[in-house]
C-alpha cells in the first residue's frame, strides 16, 4: 500500500508546489515590504512645482494618505498617470507624489503637460527618502493610516481596478478604525 501511496503523495505535493510557483499572476519581482505595519519614515523635501515650499509628511499625521513614487524616466509611470488622474478626481485621500531621482524641470513639464494628480510633489533628487521607504523601483504606491503607519504597499502601475479592490477597502477600514 505504502509503495503506491508515497509516490502519489509526493506527486501531489509537487503539483501544489508548481501551482504556487508557476502561477502567472504572481509577480516574482515584487517583494513584500518589511515596512508594512511600521511608522512611515518622515521626510521634509522641497516641492517640484514650488521649490520654496517644504513638503513634510509629519503634517499629514491624523490623515489617511497615499504616497506614489514616480519619475519622468519611468515608463510604467506614464502608464499609470491616467488612472492616477481619475483617482485624484474622486478626492478620496491626498496623493503625495514622491519624485524619485528625477530632473526637476522635466518633472515640472510632465505635470503641466500630462496633468497633476498630486496634492504635493516632494522632490527626492538623491533618492535618500526613497531608501528610507524601501523603494526599489518606480512606480510604487504606499498607503499610510491615521496613525502614520504604512498599511499597504503596491508595486507596479496602479489601475482603477487595483484602486477599487486594494486601496478603497483599506482606506475605509483605516478611517473607521479610529
Amino acid at each position, binding site marked *: 500500500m505504502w509503495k503506491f501511496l508515497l509516490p502519489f503523495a509526493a506527486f501531489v505535493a509537487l503539483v501544489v508546489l508548481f501551482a504556487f510557483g508557476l502561477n502567472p499572476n504572481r509577480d516574482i519581482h515584487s*517583494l513584500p515590504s*518589511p*515596512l508594512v505595519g511600521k511608522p512611515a519614515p518622515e521626510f521634509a523635501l522641497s516641492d517640484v512645482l514650488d521649490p520654496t515650499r517644504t513638503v513634510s509628511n509629519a503634517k499629514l499625521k491624523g490623515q489617511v494618505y497615499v504616497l506614489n513614487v514616480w519619475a519622468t524616466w519611468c515608463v510604467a509611470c506614464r502608464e499609470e498617470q491616467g488612472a492616477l488622474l481619475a483617482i485624484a478626481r474622486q478626492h478620496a485621500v491626498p496623493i503625495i507624489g514622491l519624485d524619485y531621482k528625477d530632473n526637476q524641470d522635466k518633472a515640472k513639464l510632465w505635470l503641466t503637460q500630462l496633468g497633476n494628480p498630486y496634492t504635493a510633489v516632494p522632490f527626492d533628487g538623491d*533618492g535618500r527618502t526613497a*531608501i*528610507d521607504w*524601501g523603494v*526599489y523601483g518606480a512606480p510604487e504606491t504606499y498607503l499610510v493610516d491615521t496613525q502614520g503607519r504604512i498599511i499597504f504597499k503596491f508595486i507596479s502601475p496602479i489601475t482603477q481596478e487595483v484602486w477599487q479592490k486594494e486601496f478603497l477597502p483599506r482606506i475605509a477600514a483605516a478611517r473607521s478604525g479610529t
Partner: protein
Amino acid sequence: MRFRAMLPAAALLCALQSPAQQPAPLDDHGQLRNPVLQTRFERITKELRCLQCQNESIADSNAELAADLRRQVREMLVAGQSDAAIFSFMTDRYGEFVRFAPPWSPKSSLIWGAPFFVLLVGGLIVFRVARQRSRMPLDE
C-alpha cells in the same frame, strides 16, 4: 552687489578652514582612503542584493539604486557604524531578501536545512535499494 562680491571670498575662507585638516574620505577613484574601511565596504556590498536586478550584488550592479546603496554603505562606514548596523539598516527597509546569505532564523532554517534533508532522504533510499539488490540472487 557688494554682498555678491563677498561670496567668493567667503567660499575661499571656508575652503581654507575645513577640508585641509580633514582629507575627504574618498580618493580620486572613489575608493575609501582608509584601507580597513575599503575592505569592509567590498565585503558588505558583495553580501547585499541589488533589488532592481535581483541576481546581482550592489557591488556588481550598475543600477542607480545600487549606486545609492553603495553611497549609503560608504557613509555609514565613514560614520563609524558597525557591519551589523549597516545590515540591519538594509533589512529594516528591504527585508531579509536584500541579503544573499540571510542569518539563521526559524524561517530561513527551512532553506538552509532543505539540502541536508533531501540528501538524507535520497541517501536512505539508495541505501535501502542497494541492500535489497544485494540480497537478490544473481541470476534471476
